[in-house]
């Protein structure tokens, strides 16, 4: 079984993680483990993980799942136990993008809001703060003629 180790610099809620491959490890599982929360023992020193910032891994044999490294425990010299949890967003990112959904809050696609954006500022939203001060603007009606009195 091959396990690819990565350094992940994206936060938890990012769908497409920004990951950098560190190295591959090859070995065999010698004890039972979970698919979503596996615990894997590597014949490595814990410094081999921490020095290179390894915090993420990919296991093709586990259904092409990506995993966060949630914990490490040094058992003894040259033996480290790594606890993981599946990253469902990265693992199923293409399948998720194929789904349709009702967007509750969204972001503009560009620098300005257009009708194609999943945003509707006319929807009442108590979360958007407003200044205490109100602004008064003058809008002229263009294209007409001046009013004539008595005529």
């Amino acid at each position, binding site marked *: 079984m091959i396990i690819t180790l990565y350094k992940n610099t994206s936060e938890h809620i990012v769908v497409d993680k920004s990951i950098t491959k560190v190295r591959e490890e090859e070995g065999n599982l010698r004890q039972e483990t979970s698919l979503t929360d596996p615990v894997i023992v590597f014949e490595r020193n814990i410094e081999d993980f921490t020095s290179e910032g390894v915090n993420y891994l990919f296991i093709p044999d586990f259904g092409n799942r990506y995993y966060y490294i949630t914990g490490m425990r040094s058992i003894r010299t040259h033996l480290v136990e790594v606890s993981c949890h599946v990253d469902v967003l990265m693992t*199923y990112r293409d399948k998720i993008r194929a*789904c349709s*959904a009702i967007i*509750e809050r969204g972001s503009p696609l560009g620098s300005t809001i257009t009708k194609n954006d999943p945003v509707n500022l006319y929807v009442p939203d108590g979360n*958007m703060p407003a200044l205490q001060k109100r*602004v008064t*603007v003058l809008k002229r009606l263009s294209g007409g003629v001046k009013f004539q009195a*008595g005529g």
Partner: protein
Amino acid sequence: MCGYSIPVSGSQMPNVINSITGVITGAAQAVGGGVQFAASVGSGNPVGMVVGLSQAVSGIANAASNLASRDMHAVQHSGLSTGIPGWFDEQEPYFLITRPQLALAHDYSGFYGLPGYVTRQLTRDNIKGFTSVRYIHLDGIPALESELREIEELLHNGVRF
């Protein structure tokens, strides 16, 4: 807020009639004062001359005032000044709009998103940045039940595409 009231109904007519009546009354008052003044001159009564002259001048002033304001009563001007002074104000209609100002922090939508309530497929062309999902059908995802629940919970709380 529009600055003018245009007299398109009969409700403005009393103003016009009052102006005309005021002109007639003022003229009559001026004539009466003139007659009294002339009689007082003939009789050598100085008090009558002063009173008659005063009434004549007052009557002329009233008549002139009502005559000058006859047309202006027909169009009413709202805003800071009304009536005759209003004619020195802006003669074109305009709106004064008072509204609240948003106090959005920099990249507010990137952190928390903006209200949406629209249906979209979550493709790269449709969705970008912070997004939270109200309802979704997770069809066609070969995930475990626990994983599907986690996906739905994450999408509901908000993710960044």
